[in-house]
Structure formats: structure tokens, C-alpha cells
């Protein structure tokens, strides 16, 4: 049943966003693992449409925040407004912001100021918002899907490492090939399929899928292998890792195994395999390592270095 549900969900998203099957699978992995996802890609590649299609397919409440430098934290988390009641008394009432939704799309998150970005920290990590000393829990399930443009860096505020670490996966949105572009024309020339997407799964079904993902068996050797992979990103462990200033955090290990469990579930398995770990290694690790200045000046990319580390790690399995 779970495999069938997942297949239907993937099919619906693939019909809305053409030529991005890998991206769809990875986004579903992050969502079903209960994590937040950072999408990075050039404008016009369908990032926003993908998130809208996901919300429509899952029947989730979607909120969208377009980040600008003058965006205030209260614009995201909500604020207290002075209201007048029927008897004429005035009082402060908390008006929830757009973060109070099941799925929050934060567009161009790197255009928001660090103060606004930090406002998302508590929401993403704790699942709550504190306003005037009062805690306001966020609805469940809760996901943040943020997008950012890697090209336009002027007037942007790169996310700090602590903020980046909160994202379970960082997905690169690649340019579709010619066949994908042609297929896109057939479905989205005059209208946006994401706007008309019907619900495929109920929120209960989504909860069940997430629970099933937590039931996937992870053998002890694979847990040790995951630990080895995370540790191999630390500087000093290898010649390649020497180009990293900081390696992946323990949260990366959790993200690795949680994402791999969903991958196993999507493959119809109740157990984890090394291939699952390999598939999610780059999305889990690429935003959790920091290159040295020398490596950046030399033009090294985290994906390339991590790719060689993963390749060697696979050889040791």
C-alpha cells in the first residue's frame, strides 16, 4: 500500500513538473523524512511550482513567503495586533504569520536579512513560535521548503551554517534536457498544472507513510557505515577532506539515515541498503561542509569533493 501511495504521488508530481524526476523523488524523501528542504537553482526552473504541486497533491495548507531585505521577522512568524472588542475594550491579539501552515514556501530565502532568517530557526527546529513570552505551536505536519538563487549574490545574505544545518536536504535544481523541455511545453504552455493538481494522498496517509519510514530496519553495519561516511568529511581524515574547513555535523548523520529510510521505503523495502545511503549522501552533506579558502580559490566544489569521498566510501563497504 505504501509503495502504491508513493507511486501515485510521484506520478502526480511528475505530471506537473516535467523532466525533474530526480528532484521530485528527493523532495518527497525530505518531506516524508519530516525534514525541511532547501532548493537551489536558477530562476524559472519550476521550484515554486514544484512546491505548490506538492502541497496540492498532499492536500496540505500552503503558505508562501517572498523574502526581501525589508522583510521583518514578524512578517513570517506573526505579530500582536491591538484589537478592540465589542465592549470597547482593547487588547493585544496574536495574529499568526505565514509560518503557521503545513507547508511553508520561503522564496529566495537568502534575500531576507539575517534577523528574519533567524526567526525561522525556532520554527524549523522547535516547531513553535514564541511571541511576547507566549509559545504558539505550529501545525503538524510542518515543512519549510526554501529556495535560493545561486547566481544573484548582490543584496543577498547567505544563510549561516547554523541555519543551513536545519535543512534536512539541499537539492540542486538542474536544467532539464531537451526532451524535458519539449514535454513541459505540452503540459504547461497555457496553464500551470500545479494550480489544478488534485489531491492524491490524505494527510492521514502521509502520516502513515512517515510512520512506515521510521519502521525501516537499519542493520548495525550500515549504521557504522553511515558514521564512517560522516566522519570521512572531517578535515584530516583524507587528502580530499583536507579541503574542508568543517565537516558534517551529527545532525547530518541523523539526516542521512532518516532520508535513506525513506529511500528504502520508496524502493519497496523494509530494510536499508547501502545504495539508499549513497543516493541521499550528497543532498544530506553538501550544505553541511565548509570549504577552505584555498579550496574555494582553487575552484573546488563541495559536490565534487563529496562525490569522491562517497565513491571511496562505497568501495570500502
Amino acid at each position, binding site marked *: 500500500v505504501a509503495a502504491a501511495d508513493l507511486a501515485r504521488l510521484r506520478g502526480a508530481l511528475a505530471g506537473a513538473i516535467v523532466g525533474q524526476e530526480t528532484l521530485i523523488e528527493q523532495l518527497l524523501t525530505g518531506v516524508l523524512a519530516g525534514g525541511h528542504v532547501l532548493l537551489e537553482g536558477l530562476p524559472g526552473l519550476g521550484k515554486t511550482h514544484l512546491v505548490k504541486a506538492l502541497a496540492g497533491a498532499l492536500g496540505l495548507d500552503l503558505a508562501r513567503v517572498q523574502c526581501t531585505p525589508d522583510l521583518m521577522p514578524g512578517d513570517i512568524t506573526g505579530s500582536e495586533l491591538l484589537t478592540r472588542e465589542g465592549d470597547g475594550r482593547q487588547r493585544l491579539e496574536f495574529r499568526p504569520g505565514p509560518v503557521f501552515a503545513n507547508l511553508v514556501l520561503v522564496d529566495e530565502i537568502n534575500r531576507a536579512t539575517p534577523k528574519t532568517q533567524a526567526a525561522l530557526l525556532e520554527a524549523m527546529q522547535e516547531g513553535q513560535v514564541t511571541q511576547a513570552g507566549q509559545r504558539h505551536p505550529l501545525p503538524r505536519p510542518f515543512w519549510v521548503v526554501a529556495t535560493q538563487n545561486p547566481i544573484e549574490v548582490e543584496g543577498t545574505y547567505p544563510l549561516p551554517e547554523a541555519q543551513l544545518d536545519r535543512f534536512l536536504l539541499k537539492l540542486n535544481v538542474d536544467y532539464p534536457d531537451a526532451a524535458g523541455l519539449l514535454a513541459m511545453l505540452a503540459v504547461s504552455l497555457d496553464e500551470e498544472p500545479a494550480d489544478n493538481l488534485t489531491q492524491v494522498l490524505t494527510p492521514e496517509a502521509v502520516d502513515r507513510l512517515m510512520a512506515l519510514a*521510521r*519502521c*525501516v*530496519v*537499519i*542493520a*548495525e*553495519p*550500515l549504521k557504522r557505515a553511515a558514521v564512517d561516511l560522516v566522519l570521512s568529511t572531517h578535515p584530516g581524515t583524507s587528502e580530499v577532506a583536507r579541503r574542508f574547513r568543517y565537516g558534517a555535523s551529527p545532525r547530518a548523520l541523523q539526516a542521512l539515515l532518516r532520508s535513506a529510510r525513506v529511500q528504502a521505503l520508496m524502493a519497496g*523495502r*523494509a*530494510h*536499508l*541498503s*547501502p*545504495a539508499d545511503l549513497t543516493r541521499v549522501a550528497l543532498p544530506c552533506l553538501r550544505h553541511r561542509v565548509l570549504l577552505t579558502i584555498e579550496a574555494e580559490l582553487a575552484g573546488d566544489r563541495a559536490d565534487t569533493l563529496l562525490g569522491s569521498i562517497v565513491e571511496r566510501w562505497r568501495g570500502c*563497504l
Partner: protein
Amino acid sequence: VTPAERTRLARLIRRVRLSLWLAALGRALVPGVWGGALILAAGALAHWRLGVPDIQVLAALACAPALAGLAIGLRARPSPETAVLAADRQAEAQALLLSAWDLLAGRPPQPAGAPVVLAQAARALPIWERRIRAQRPQTARVDLWPPLLALLAALPLLALQPPRGETAGTADGSSPAVGPVEADPAPTDSPSLQSLVADLRRAAMETPPAAPMGTEGKVPGGQGEDRGPSADSATPQGLAASGTSGTVPRAPTTQAQAGGADPQAAAPAGNPEQAEGSTGGPFTGSGQDVAGTGPASAEGRRPAGQGVPPAPERHVALTRQGAGGKPQTAAGDTLGTAASEPVPGHAPSRAPPAALPQGLATDLTAFAPAQRRFVELWSARMQEGQPQ
């Protein structure tokens, strides 16, 4: 998972573990066995040519690398987890075998998906057995057989006692019974048998009939003088011996034995007679003529002064012995010493058929057996008066 399936899974993993162990053993043995075979080959060659090393030492040296490889291989027994990983890979189980084994190991807490995984593993078990059986390497390491067989053949040599003939002596101190050594190589500085025969024949042709030597002290020459090395190569020791004995040494000396002695250097020791200045010496000019005309004249080797004229019979014998081409300086010394022994009485006109001189007899031990027999035969014929 039933107990039977659990047993089958355990047996499958044991089989894979054993095959992994054997493979590791083979990998560890390859360099050791080949190294041992190389040592064995080199040692056997050395033993054949030089007689060293001892066969037991050789066997131990050859077996040592293989035994070391064997020890390393035995210690390289894979862990159960390694065996499970390999079995999973061989069975293409995509970590299902690994997960099932991990669950059966009973590490709590069991995840909720454990029953599903075990059920899937039980269904896939026959397929895994087939795949692993199919992937098991069927080919033996044929490349290991030749060196391994050579080493196994060398192994019993370790248990053998060395033969008695190889020991230096027996317990009671007597010499070990050693048969005739026919294959002993001739000394490199001794003349070959063919040259020896040629010398003998030449000496027989050129040597005048045994003439009595007068008391005037003429020194008869011989072919040996011509053959002999020049005075440059005469050893001071030999000249000294000759000088004291008053005889002319017939033994040629090699350059190596001469030690670079020149006539001037030899003169004080042997007091050689200079040809132009020998007026009052025991040697006359005729003696010089008889002594030979070769470039290596015998002036430097002729002792002067206190030289005692040799006894005639000694002279004849020595002449013929000298014609025999005694190759060693030691032989020459021996001859000189023998000749210097005082012999009472006058010399007969012919050399009496006598046995080998004692000095020569003892000196024959320096010859190879074949040469020794040849000289003995020659001596016997000379005594019988037969021509060469």
C-alpha cells in the same frame, strides 16, 4: 523465520566465511610459496655447485616464507560480519540478508519492520543459496601447485639426518671412509694432463742419456730449464733453497708464487751466479750451455758459492723428474731438499732402477689422482727402462 531457516541461513554464512578464509589463505600463501620456491631453487643451485648450504638449512629456509604466509593466512580469518557482508553481496540481497542476520542476532530493540524483513529473508533464502553456490570460485589456484609441490618435497628433508660422509670426522676421530674422488677438479695452477704428457715426451726426447756427472760441478740442463719461468719469476724462497742445496731447481714457478721477485731481489737470498762474473764458482760455461738457451736463463737461479755438487744418481733422477714438469714451487723445494741430502759414494753411469724418491712420493699428494697415477706409471716405466 523457522528454526530450520535460521539454521540454513547460519550455514550459508558459515560457508561464505570459510570460502573467504580460504581465499585469504591463498592470497597470503602466494608470495610465501613463490618466495620459498625461489629460495629452494637458488639454494639447490648453490648446494650443487658449492656444497652449501646444508640440505636441512636449505629446506628450512625454503619452507620459512611459506609457513609465514600460512600463519598470516590462518590469522586472517574473516569476522562473521565480514562474512555476512560478503554473503549479502554474493547473493545480491541488497542488504536483506545483512538485515535479517542483524535481526536474528537479537540486538534489541527490534524495529517494527523486523517481521517483514525476516519473512522476506526466509522467502529469498533458497535464491541466495543458489547464487552463492554459483558464484563460488570453482577454479583452483593452479599457479600455486608447482612451488607448493617443490616445497612439500623439500619438507621431509628437514627430518633427515645428514649423511656421515658430510661430517668432518667420526666420533672416534678416524677419518671417514671416503671413496676415491675421481671427479675432483684439478688445481687451477697445475698443468693439464695433456701438457704433462707432452712435457714427458719432450723430456724423453731431449734429455741425453743418463750421463755421469763429473765432480767439476757441471750442472746439466734440461728442458725444464727452458720451460721454466724466467729468473724474474723465481721465488726468493726457492732460490734460497737452491742456493743452500747447490742444485738447480727444476720446478717452474708461477708468477703468482713468484711474488714479483726479480734477480736483483733474489740475488742476496740465493746468491745467484752472474754469467759474466762467474769466474770462481762451481758452475762453468759448459754448464751454462747445457742449462739451456732460453730467454729465461738460469743465471739468477744458479746458486753460487757454497753449493754442493749433487750426487750423480740424484742428478739423473732429478733431471728426469724436472723434465716431468713439477708444477709447484713446493715441489721444487722438495726436490731441492731431497737432492741436498748427502749421498755417499760415487755416482753410477746409469741411474739405477729405483723406486720413486721419497720426496717425490710424498709430494705426489699435491697432484690430482689421475696425474698421480700417471707419474707412478711413468716412474715404473722409467725403472723398467722402457722408452716413453
